[in-house]
């Protein structure tokens, strides 16, 4: 199991286009309590945003005839959100932005190229520091999964940081 996972990781290397992080413009995001199993643009600004109402107990809207209640979630300090998009497979040239990583990589053993023509590239198309979290008929509240998920970076930092030796 584990070994096959690692093999997969070896095969599908994912590279981030660092320059895209600098250009990412802020965007409004909504996290809905449902899944739409397609990946395509949707006219949020025409259908969804104008229907949002400030109700007595928070934001209200409906999606596909079901009532949603929502609230703003602000990212923890020190974190920035990015909307990442996988680049379409194409022939690519090594951008100058990868120079730093190239140097780091040279310290490691395998002489294999960092970017191979079957690798994937992701780039940020937008950034965010807050988003609207929607619950089906109820406000998601402090127990929402995504709020818990946002505690992971600080926990990860804590467990990976150097323990001072006394």
């Amino acid at each position, binding site marked *: *199991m584990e070994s096959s*996972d690692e093999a*997969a*990781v070896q095969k*599908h290397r*994912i590279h981030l286009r660092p320059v895209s992080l600098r250009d990412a413009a802020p965007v409004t995001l909504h996290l809905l*309590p*449902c*899944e*739409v*199993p*397609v990946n*395509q643009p*949707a*006219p949020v*600004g*025409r*259908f*969804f945003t*104008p*229907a949002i*109402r400030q109700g007595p107990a928070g934001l209200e809207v*409906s*999606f*596909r*005839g*079901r*009532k949603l209640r929502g609230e703003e979630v602000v990212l923890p300090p020190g974190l920035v959100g990015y909307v990442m998009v*996988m680049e379409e497979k194409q022939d690519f040239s090594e951008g100058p932005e990868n120079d730093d990583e190239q140097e780091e990589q040279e310290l490691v053993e395998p002489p294999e190229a960092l970017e191979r023509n079957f690798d*994937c590239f*992701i780039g940020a198309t937008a950034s965010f520091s807050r988003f609207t979290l929607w619950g*089906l*008929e109820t406000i998601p509240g402090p127990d929402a*999964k*995504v709020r*818990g*998920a946002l*505690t*992971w970076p600080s926990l990860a930092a804590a467990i990976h940081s150097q323990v001072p030796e006394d």
Partner: protein
Amino acid sequence: MDLSELERDNTGRCRLSSPVPAVCRKEPCALGVDEAGRGPVLGPMVYAICYCPLSRLADLEALKVADSKTLSESERDRLFAKMKEDRDFVGWALDVLSPNLISTSMLGRVKYNLNSLSHDTAAGLVQYALDQGVQVAQVFVDTVGMPDTYQQRLQQRFPGVEVTVKAKADALYPVVSAASICAKVARDQAVRNWQFVEKLQDLDADYGSGYPNDPKTKAWLRRHVEPVFGFPQFVRFSWRTAQSILEKEAEDVTWEDSGTEDQEGLGRITSYFNEGPRTRPRLPHRYFQERSLEAATSL
């Protein structure tokens, strides 16, 4: 009829009413309840009450009010204008239930069906008249569902009032006819002047009667499907017609309460009798499961 309050926000419900005639606070009154736009897949459902003193019922009858369905639109408008002229003894109130309210009620986690919504709205309007000081002595209601159980429920809720629930009450009692005219005038006007919440391109108003079996209505629905959002809020998503068009022509949507067919980590019960190793996926730590966090080693 001034529906500007509805036009400002038509995502919920909206109550409109005439001033209460002074005589209706002094004398025992008859009150009729009726609705318009229960069946259509488009637009709001309007509930209306109309009331007048028992002593003036003959004057109301003299207006020649009749079941709104037997009248033309201009006749209904004319009769509604007459009722306005008679505001010294005829009062009315409306509850406009937006299609969005109907959809979200019927598609709620706890289903709130159209009959219950209708009964509660009717009872709410009778209560509203009582709260305004109208001396309601008799209530006449055009039935929704079984008249007997509906009558019992209303009678229980309003013990001091004589309640009559009957099929075709809108043709039998002038107060119900008057209520049906108020409801129908409001519904027609609301549909005609519908302020779409959405910013729609290529919007056309050629939706026919709005009834699900009208080919024009169906064609309009098909033309206005949006793959992700489905329809504008003008459409009652809870109607079978709307849902079957979405099933065919829009993207699927899975909700957290849309059924739990496959439980994670569990196979079919017969798998325990099979030979060979059971392949049970190794689950990540509870911390990650509880937060729906997954490793992004592959995308």
